[in-house]
C-alpha cells in the first residue's frame, strides 16, 4: 500500500469519525448529569438541515455551524422541558425527539435535495499541507480541530473544574446535590443544552464536511452510534476519541478493501454498509463482558428528579 493511499485513508477516517465524536462528547456530558437523551439522531438531523440551508443561502460556513448549534439547542429544549420540567419518561421522549427531528428536517429540507453547497475548506493554508505527512496534521477543516479540542475541554471540565464537579454530583446523587443547594434541574438543563449544541454541530458536519448536499436522513443512524459509543467509552472522553476513530475506520474500510483488491473486495457492498451497525453490537457485547463498564455509569442515569416528594 502506497504512502498516498495510507494518508488518504487516514484523512477519510478522521472525517468520518468527527461528527460521531462531537455528538458523543455532547451526550457524554448529558449522561454525566444523570440524563439519558436518546434524541441525538433527531437533533443531528435538525442541525444538518439548518447547517445546509444557512450554508446554501449565505455561503458562510461558520455562521452555518453556529446556527446549527443553536437549532440543536432549541430542539434539545423540547426534550429538556418534557423530561426535566414535566418529568416525562426519558427513553420515550428521546425516541419522540428522534422521530420529530427526522420529520422536521425532511419537511424543512423539501426542495433542497440535489442542490450543492461547498465543503468547509481546510483551516490552515495549503502551503502547510503540501507534503503528504503534513497533510495528516494540517489538512483538515476547523470542525476536525474543534472536535479534538472539545475532547480536552470536556475532560478538563469534568475532571478539573468546579462546575464539572457539581455536574457529576448531580448525576451521581441528585438528592444530595439538591440538599446541598445546587439546582439539579438547572444543571441538567444546561447539560441537555450543551448536548443539543454538540449534536447540532455534529449534524452540520454531514453537509459541510462529508457530502456537500442535503439528503433526508443523511445522518444514517450515526447519532445512535454516538449514544452507543458513550457506553463503550465508559463515560471517559479520551476513550471516546479512540472509539470514534475506530468506528471511522470501520466505516471507511470499504474504500481500503476495494483499493487493495485482495479477497476483502469480494465482500458485498451491502455488508460493508451494515458493518458500523454490526460493529456497534459487537462493541456493546465486548464492553459488557468487561466488568468496570456498567459500574462507571452515572448512578442517576435516566431517573427523573422531583424534589417535591
Amino acid at each position, binding site marked *: 500500500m502506497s504512502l498516498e493511499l495510507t494518508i488518504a485513508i487516514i484523512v477519510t477516517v478522521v472525517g468520518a469519525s468527527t461528527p460521531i465524536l462531537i455528538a458523543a462528547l455532547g451526550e457524554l456530558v448529558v449522561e454525566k448529569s444523570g440524563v439519558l437523551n436518546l434524541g441525538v439522531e433527531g437533533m443531528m438531523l435538525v442541525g444538518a438541515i439548518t447547517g445546509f440551508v444557512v450554508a446554501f443561502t449565505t455561503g458562510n460556513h461558520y455562521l452555518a455551524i453556529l446556527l446549527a448549534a443553536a437549532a440543536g439547542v432549541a430542539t434539545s429544549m423540547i426534550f429538556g422541558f418534557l423530561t426535566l420540567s*414535566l418529568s416525562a419518561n426519558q427513553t420515550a421522549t428521546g425516541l419522540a425527539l428522534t422521530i420529530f427531528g427526522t*420529520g422536521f428536517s425532511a419537511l424543512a429540507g423539501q426542495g433542497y435535495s440535489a442542490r450543492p453547497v461547498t465543503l468547509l475548506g481546510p483551516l490552515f493554508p495549503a502551503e502547510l499541507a503540501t507534503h503528504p505527512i503534513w497533510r495528516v496534521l494540517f489538512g483538515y477543516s476547523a470542525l476536525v480541530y474543534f472536535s479534538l479540542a472539545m475532547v480536552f475541554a470536556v475532560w478538563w471540565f469534568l475532571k478539573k473544574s468546579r462546575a464539572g464537579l457539581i455536574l457529576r454530583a448531580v448525576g451521581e446523587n441528585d438528592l444530595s446535590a439538591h440538599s446541598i443547594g445546587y439546582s439539579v434541574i438547572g444543571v441538567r438543563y444546561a447539560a441537555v443544552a450543551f448536548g443539543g449544541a454538540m449534536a447540532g454541530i455534529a449534524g452540520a458536519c454531514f453537509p459541510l464536511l462529508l457530502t456537500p448536499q442535503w439528503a433526508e436522513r443523511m445522518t444514517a443512524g450515526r447519532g445512535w452510534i454516538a449514544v*452507543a459509543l458513550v457506553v463503550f467509552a465508559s463515560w471517559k472522553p479520551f476513550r471516546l476519541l479512540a472509539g470514534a476513530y475506530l468506528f471511522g475506520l470501520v466505516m471507511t474500510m470499504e474504500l481500503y478493501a476495494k483499493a487493495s483488491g485482495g479477497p476483502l473486495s469480494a465482500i458485498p457492498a*451491502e*455488508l460493508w454498509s451494515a458493518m458500523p451497525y454490526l460493529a456497534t453490537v459487537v462493541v*456493546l457485547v465486548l464492553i459488557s463482558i468487561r466488568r468496570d463498564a456498567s459500574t462507571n455509569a452515572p448512578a442517576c442515569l435516566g431517573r427523573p428528579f422531583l424534589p*417535591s416528594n
Partner: protein
Amino acid sequence: MQFRLEKRPEPSRLMLYGTPVAAVVLTMFIGAIIFSLIGYDGIGAVREIFFTPLTNAFKWQDLGVKAAPLIIIGVGLSIAYRANVWNIGAEGQYIMGGLAAPWGALASHGAGGWWTLPAMMIAGVAGGAAYAAIPALLRTRLNVNEILTSLMLTYASVQLIYYLVRAPWKDPMGMGFPQTRRFASEALLPNIIPGTIVHAGVPIAIIVALVAWFIMTRSVFGYQMRVVGAAPHAARYGGFSENKTIWLALLVSGGLAGLAGMLEVAGPFQRMVPGFPTNYGFTAIIVAFLGRLNPLGVIFAGIVMAITFVGGEIAQTTIGLSNSATGVFQAMMLFFLLAGDILVRYRVRRVTPQVEARA
C-alpha cells in the same frame, strides 16, 4: 397565586385515557398554528390530514390497510413496554418477517397450495422472533442494552434487503429493477372485500389485538408482564423470572412485527422491493404509547396514525404539503402525550403563597 404539583394516591384513570385524546386534539390546534406561522396552510393541513380520510368514504379501505400493520406491531410493542423491555427495533423484525416469508414463496413458486400462506405466516413470525432473540440473548446473558442492539440490527436488516434483491433474489425478467418476481397467486393474501384493497391482514390485526387484550388482562402471562414492568422487586419476590419476561417480551413483540412484515409483503407489496421498509416499526412505537400500552387502545391509536398517513398523502396532492409533515404531526402527538403523563400521576393544586414569618 401559585401552582403546585401534588402526587395522586393512585394514577387517575380519567387522565390515563383522557390525555391521548387531548394529545390528538392539541396536535390539531397547535399544529395548525405552527404550520401557519412557518408559512404553510396550517388549517388546510390539519383538515386534509385529520378529517378528509374520515369524510371521504373512498379512503376508508386505505385506513384499514395502513392501520393493520401498525396495530399488529403496536400490540407487540405495548406488551414489551409494559414489561419495561425497550424493543425499538420492531422495524428490523418487521423486515426480517418480510424476508423470511417470501423465502419459501420464491422457492416453491408455482408448486404451492393451500398450505403456502400459513407456512409463510409461520416463517414471518419465526423470522421476526428470531431477530428479536438476538437482543434478548444479549440482554439476559450479558446485560447489553436492548435499545441500542435492536436498533442497530434494524439498520443492518435494511442492507440485507438491498443485498437480496440486488443479487440472489433478483427477478431475471425484472428489466434490471432490483426486486424479486411477483409471488405466485397462492402466496398472495386474498382480498376479503371484493373491489377494494382490503386484505386478510385487516381482520387478523383486530383478532391479534383482541387476543392480546384477553391474554394481558386474564392470564398469568399478562400478569407477569405487568408486574415485572411495574414492580421488578415485587415480581422477583413473587417468583417471576425477570430473564424469562425479557425473553417473552422480545419474542412476542418480534414475532408480531414479523407477522406484520409477512402480511405486508404477501399483501400490498406482492414482491420484495428495496422500498419495503416503510417505518411502520417506528410509527408503531407512537401507536403503542398513544394506545396507553393497552391492546384495545392500540386499535384506536393505530387507526388515528393510519388517518395521518392517509391524510398526509391526500395533503400532498391537494395542497402540495410534503409527506414528511405527517411525521412532524405524529411526533407532536407523542410530545403532547408525554407532557400530559404528569397529570396521570400528579394533580395541579392552586396554592396561595403563605406569608413568610420574617415579613
